[in-house]
């Protein structure tokens, strides 16, 4: 199916949820409200004509100061059977950065959503194992936000000192007593 046809099908089924459809270089993006994302994803996964069985990727984008709602959660879907793809974008505001998890539909969303939380601070409700993934668990801030400095924050990560101390202790250890 052509990308725009897929977008039309989603629009037909969920007319109130679709905010906009954009096409660029032959790829369609469907911009959605976040509230019924799980329902939409389940429909896309189960519908025999669409049959998006493969969730390629989930990631966040920070549009600080550029858009009314600061974050977007971007889903890339692909159907191995029909060989077509679509991109869903759910708008998430800064004041309530929360969206439903789609792990119930695709198991593969698990780590992608954890990473999205780690990097942007978007909370995925209904996620089975929700914690940071790439950064240390006691890290402050979310590095891929646009207001996070590239060189890191002034404040040092408290875990760093603990690691140094431990390394020092190991150095002082006498192997032959």
């Amino acid at each position: 199916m052509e990308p725009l046809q897929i977008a039309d099908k989603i629009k037909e089924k969920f007319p109130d949820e679709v905010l906009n459809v954009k096409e660029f270089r032959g790829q369609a993006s469907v911009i959605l409200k976040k509230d019924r994302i799980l329902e939409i994803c389940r429909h896309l996964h189960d519908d025999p004509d669409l049959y998006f069985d493969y969730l390629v990727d989930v990631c966040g984008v920070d549009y600080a100061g550029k858009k009314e709602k600061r974050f977007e959660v971007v889903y890339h879907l692909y159907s191995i059977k029909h060989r077509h793809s679509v991109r869903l974008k759910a708008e998430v505001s800064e004041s309530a950065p929360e969206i439903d998890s789609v792990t119930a539909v695709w198991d593969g969303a698990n780590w992608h959503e954890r990473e999205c939380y780690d990097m942007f601070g978007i909370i995925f409700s209904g996620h089975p194992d929700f914690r940071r993934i790439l950064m240390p668990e006691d890290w402050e801030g979310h590095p891929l936000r646009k207001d996070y400095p590239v060189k890191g924050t002034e404040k040092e990560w408290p875990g760093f000192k603990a690691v140094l101390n431990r390394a020092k202790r190991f150095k002082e250890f006498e192997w032959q007593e």
Partner: protein
Amino acid sequence: MEQIEKTFETRELTINIGPQHPATHGVLRLVLTLDGETVIKCTPHVGYLHRGIEKLGENRTYFSALPLTDRLDYISSMNNNVGYVNAVEKLFGIEVPERAKFIRTMAAEMGRISSHIIWLGTHVLDIGATTPFLYAFRERERILDLFEALCGARLTVSYPRVGGVRNDISQEFLDELYAFVLEFPDRMDDYETLVTENRIWKKRTVGIGVISAEEAVNWGLTGGMLRGSGVNYDVRKHTPYDAYDRVEFDIPLGKNGDCYDRYLVRMGELRQANRIIKQCIEKLPLGPVMADAPKFTLPPKDMVLKDMEHLIHQFILITKGPVVPEGEIYSATEVPKGELGFYLVSDGSGKPYRMRVRAPSFVHASVLPKLCEGGLVADVIANIGSIDIVLGECDR
């Protein structure tokens, strides 16, 4: 029985593997809960090699973000470069000359051989066979020597460029590569003799780490992991890029989705990669290796040194970056590990507004609990080898 259990009190044991462990292929850390030798729970911890490549990419122009992609999957940096430049070209909307397409396809398949061969060596070494490891590095060395002849670098190549490749290839290089291609099938036969029907090898891999086709798709697995379960999905066939639609190759498929089938699939891929390189050398067309799109590609270096206009052009492109249409694209390529995707968002400036890397190793590491739970501790090692992850790509 009850009496025995009362006498010998049993309890679950939690052990830690990694991050510094030779069998975890990098800095992967696993926390295992064991009941005797059986794994009840497996929790992977990643992020020890997180360098913030996505964040760094947002602060560089499209050209200078290229060397960052070398550092993703450092075993097959050529494939990452090809994936990245394909994404950027799609965003810019430029067409690459035929010759460059063939050279890239050839280089990418060389990268696939070098990556799969290191996977083969380390995977069988983990399970206990030392000999193929030593042989495998001999072949990898030859590929790396060829890379050196091609572009001067062995590991972090940065050879493809936005709009083509950095330099044209020489006849000596082609002759040497062709000699390698003719010899390689015999080497493959050697490995297969050593490993494929080996009784110990089969005992350790057949029926280990099984994942069904539906589950594999649902978990988002790609590459050898997915095809080992019998799902025919290969980016090179589904959405062909570069010259993959002009060469013939088969997609090896597994059946049972266990470690052994994944092994067979990757061995098949090695032979197919060799076949693709051979065809590329034979079909290599003549012509330029850089696209004629002065607004989006860097001018040739000799012209920059001689000509004022080109110098200014180079200066503008390097400092400000090109003027890119606003938009966003997702572009996927098949790297040795699976599907490597780049999601680029452009806001019209010379730098990507968002550079997302969809790393196959990250997804494959996430499926590790599914493969390991219920199996034995020794099988965890077989599974780690079989999923073929590189932590540089997983943590980015």
